[in-house]
Structure formats: C-alpha cells, structure tokens
C-alpha cells in the first residue's frame, strides 16, 4: 500500500491537469466562438474526414461480400414492390374489361371486383407508406456504428479495428466533451434568462434576452456537433409571423433557434424541461400550455392569435405535424396554426442520416436514451431552407392553406408529401377513410342516380 501512494498522487495530478487543459480548450475553441457566433471550421473538416472513411468502409464491405459470394443486403427507400398509381375506378374497370368483351359503361357488380381489394390489401401488408415513417431510415452504406449495421457477417479485420477506434473516440472523447458542453449550455440558459428576468421591461431586456437565448442554443448546437447549412436566410421569420417546419426531433428547436429569435410553443413539462421553460419565460414571452389546455382547440388558437397580433413579440415556432416523423416524408399539418391569419414562414429541415440519425422514436426510446444516442453518433448534419413567406389566399380554407405550405416544404426538402396524419403513430385510423372507399365502390356497382338509403 505504501508503494502505491506516490503513484496515486501522480495520477491525481495528471488527472487534474488534463481536466484543466480540456476545459481551457473547450472554452477557447468552442464556447467563446459560440458566444460570438464565429466558427473555426473544425466541424467541417471533421465531416469531410468522416466521409472519406465511410467511402473506404463501403468499398471494403462490397469487396468482402463479392469475395465470399454473399449477396449484400441493401435497403431500398423507395419501396420494395411495384405499385401502380391507379385509382379504384380505373383498376376495377380494367379487371372487368379483361373478364368480358362487353361494354362496361353500365355500373354492375362482378365477382372479379374482389381482386382489386385483395391485391391492394396484400400490397399494403408487404410495404405501406405510413408505418415506415415511424422508424429510423435505413442507410444505403454503413457509417461504422453498430446500430446501423445490417451486414454484420461481412466485416474484415481492418474494418472491425476501425469500428473499435470509432467506439473509443465517440464514447471516451466526444461523449464527455458533449456532455460538458450541454451542461454548460443549459445552465447558462437557465441562469441567464433568470437574471435577465429581473431587468425592467424595455429595449435593453429584449436585446439581452435574445442574445442569451441565441448564445445558449449555439453552445447546445456544438454539444451535438451539429453541422448545419442554412439556405436563403433572407426569408427568415419576422415578428408577428408563424414559423412552421417539419418535425423530426426536439433538436429541430435548437437548430432553428440558434439562427434566429423565436418564441416557443409547447406543453408544460415537469422536471428539468419544466425548470428550463419557467426560466425562459421570465426573459421573454413564450407560449406554454398546461396539459388540460392543449385539448381545447379554441383556447390554443386564441393564445396563438394574441401572440402574433402583438408585433413586439417574437415569431412563433411551431411544428404542425404534432409528432416526430423520420425525415423521409412530411405528414398532415394540423390546421390550428393556419387559422390565425398571420404570415406563415415555412422552413424545411433535412437531416443527413449518415453521420447520425436524429429521428426521435418516442415509442422506442425515452428522452435521456435519445440524447445519449445523439451524443454518441458522429455528428448531426442537416440543411435548413427558409422558404418565402406565405399567406392564406381568400379562396382557400385553413386545410388547403396547410396543404399548400406542406407541399412547398416537402418539395424543398426532397421529402415525400403524405396526407396521412402523424398521429397514426399511436392511434387507429379514422373510419371515415374506409367509408370513402366504400362510397367510391358503391358508385361503381349502382351508379349515382339510384336510391341509396338504407331501409
């Protein structure tokens, strides 16, 4: 035991020195630039290096698979079966046409009609448009994370070593660094906004509040090693407007708020989130709803409208999908934010899943697990497009306006534009859709003029 003592103090000293050095580096290279909004470009270099390594890894895997003559599993994003985009009417007419030579303008029932429903049903069992949006997107080439590995059998020694090195770097160097940054960012946010809250209302308070928020979001961006490319920044949201974006993860908020000033909308949470929310609202007005108030659509609309009508308040940031989708598509926008009459500033966010998948699968992971997964990925790389502002035209209603905005966002982000409700992640589909199908089919067998009342 006596022999260990001098070594003990040596180790403790070394530890102390390395921690001090680490924190100084942290401060100089990450926190101070974050406060002033400058960047050394370290993250971009990191990203380029990673890309080269991934390309090499992919070649290696393909070569290995060819040598062993095993087929490589390649995920296909565009679906696995051939589906024809024809309507119910067209399909059934075609089936009937092939069955008999006679003219088919008269509506009637044929036994062969069932083929349509049968095949459509089996097609959706093999591959449907909706359920795959609620799980992480499959990658085309491996990114050296075991969580995305589908070809586990075909790894060479060099690749395994590289993967091991990756694990070491990610868990022993990047993770503590990121946790330290996140901790710094969040505590600065809470203390900063609380302090600003004590100031009297006025220009000074607004200015300080905006910058405290911005600074802390920038630090959080670095805590995730998020490499963001902003496009068309001249279209950034202005006061009195509503900013809508597609939703993939809670990180979306950090990404947008580190490039602009927003008022947040959301449900009041307990725990750490609650502390942050209460502190934020001291510095400037955000819109937080109690759980009971969320159900009351009129109350929600009223508060949103009140906020946007006050031009001194910051633009609201809202995610009309209502839930996180896996960033391959945009699902139905809830019409609440489109009824207020304010200018809508659409924003499209597209993540590059190769460096780290940002999708928050709330049915699979809790918040803490999710954040840990984010912080042990390589990086979060995304592109943000600010689209030109849109307003509701006189001839369209809120739903049509919402769909128009949704299509614009989907087009810009290269995402599939779906009419399905994101709520289908947890809830059953409404019966009205089945009733629509039944109505369409009824027209085909009795036409439009017949008596349709049920006796």
């Amino acid at each position, binding site marked *: 035991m006596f022999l260990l003592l001098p070594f003990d103090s040596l180790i403790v000293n070394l530890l102390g020195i390395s921690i001090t050095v680490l924190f100084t580096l942290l401060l100089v290279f990450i926190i101070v630039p974050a406060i002033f909004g400058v960047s050394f470009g370290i993250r971009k270099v990191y990203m380029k290096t990673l890309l080269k390594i991934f390309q090499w890894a992919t070649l290696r895997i393909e070569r290995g698979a060819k040598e062993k003559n095993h*087929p490589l*599993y*390649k995920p*296909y994003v*565009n*679906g*696995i*079966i*051939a589906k024809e985009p024809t309507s119910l009417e067209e399909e059934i007419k075609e*089936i009937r046409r*092939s*069955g*008999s*030579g006679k003219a088919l303008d008269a509506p*009637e*029932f044929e*036994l*062969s*009609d*069932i*083929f*349509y*429903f*049968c*095949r*459509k*049903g*089996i*097609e*959706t*069992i*093999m*591959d*449907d*448009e*909706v*359920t*795959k949006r609620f*799980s992480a997107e499959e990658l085309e080439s491996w990114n050296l994370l075991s969580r995305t590995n589908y070809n586990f059998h075909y790894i060479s020694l060099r690749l395994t070593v590289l993967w091991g090195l990756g694990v070491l770097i990610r868990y022993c160097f990047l993770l503590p660094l990121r946790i330290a940054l996140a901790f710094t960012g969040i505590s600065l946010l809470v203390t900063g906004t609380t302090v600003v809250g004590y100031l009297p209302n006025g220009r000074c308070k607004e200015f300080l509040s905006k910058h405290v928020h911005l600074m802390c979001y920038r630090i959080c961006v670095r805590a995730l090693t998020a490499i963001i490319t902003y496009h068309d920044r001249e279209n950034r949201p202005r006061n009195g407007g509503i900013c809508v974006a597609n939703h993939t993860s809670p990180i979306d908020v950090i990404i947008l708020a580190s490039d602009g000033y927003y008022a947040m909308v959301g449900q009041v949470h307990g725990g750490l989130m609650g502390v942050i929310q209460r502190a934020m609202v001291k510095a400037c007005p955000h819109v937080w709803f109690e759980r009971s108030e969320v159900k009351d659509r009129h109350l929600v609309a009223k508060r949103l409208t009140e906020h946007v009508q006050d031009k001194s308040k910051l633009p609201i940031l809202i995610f009309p999908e209502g839930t996180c989708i896996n960033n391959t598509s945009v699902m139905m926008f809830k019409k609440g934010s489109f009824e207020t009459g304010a200018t809508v500033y659409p924003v499209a966010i597209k993540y590059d899943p190769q460096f780290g998948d940002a999708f928050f699968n709330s049915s699979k992971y809790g918040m803490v697990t999710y954040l840990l997964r984010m912080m042990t990925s390589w990086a979060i790389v995304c592109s943000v497009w600010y689209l030109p502002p849109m307003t509701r035209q006189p001839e369209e209603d809120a739903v049509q306006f919402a769909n128009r905005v949704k299509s614009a966002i989907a087009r810009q982000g290269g995402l599939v534009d779906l009419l*399905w409700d994101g709520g*289908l992640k947890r809830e*059953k*589909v409404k019966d009205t*859709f*089945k*009733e*629509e*199908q*039944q*109505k369409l*089919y*009824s027209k085909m*067998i*009795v036409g439009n003029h*017949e*008596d*349709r*009342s*049920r*006796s």
Partner: protein
Amino acid sequence: SVSHSQITRLYSRFTSLDKGENGTLSREDFQRIPELAINPLGDRIINAFFSEGEDQVNFRGFMRTLAHFRPIEDNEKSKDQNGPEPLNSRSNKLHFAFRLYDLDKDDKISRDELLQVLRMMVGVNISDEQLGSIADRTIQEADQDGDCAISFAEFVKVLEKVDVEQKMSIRFLH
C-alpha cells in the same frame, strides 16, 4: 423460387410489424397498418393469414400466404412437373379469392355469404333490397348445378377470361 434478398426484405417487414417482438403476428399487428385498416375487405384479408382457430401467425405462415401473389412467370424457371401445384398457380390464386367470399369455409358461396361480403364492400351506401337483387343476379349467372350457391368450379368458370395472373400478382422491384 423466391430470391434470398426478397426473403430478407420480407423478414425485415415481418419484424417491423411484430410490435410484441415474439416472432409472430397477431390480428392487431396487421390492423395497425393504416392503408389496410381502410380497405373495406381488410379483415377478410387479414383472416387469410391465420389458420383455423389460431390467432398468431409465424414467418413461415406469413410467407406461405404471400406466396400466392408471386407472378406466375417465376414458375417458368423451376419447372417441377411431379411436385405439388405451386401456391401462385392460376388455380390457387382463384382459390385465394374464393376463400375471401366463402365465410364458413364450406367450399360454397351462399347467398348470405355473398350479401355479407357485399355489405363490407359498400358500407351503408346501398339498400338491403338492392344488394339482395345484386346478389341474386350474380348467383343466377354463375350457378350451373341449381343449388343457389357458387361452387369453386362455377367460380372459376365465371372468371375464365379474367387476367388473374396479372391482377393477383405483386412484383418485387429488385
């Protein structure tokens, strides 16, 4: 037969539907697919996967049912004259559709069964009388042995000109 990559892909699909992660699918797992839930015959199609009295289907059963929908061209490559008839033959495809109508599995489509299936397909949009007369006409046209029901042979005869191969086949993209 089915290629290795197609099986892998379908297995991947099977596991993603298997929310309970116990290697089998229940009826609820199928009903969670929105596009299937809005199909008027969704429940009948789901039923086709489950054997009598069973309420779980494993991957083998899943593949077996889906095998009915392989394109017939695939059989040209593996001509097995002495083996059992492949699941995706024209006859077996027709049998699959027949079983969607035949609710009590007695190899006959009775007037009552036809009415029930029609009611599923049209919802509330057609009156009982009209539906009844549609069912009567259909049975009359198909029935040849005078038992006021449609047997499988009669079913096949009615549909002899329909391009079953194309309409009841699903092609893989790769």
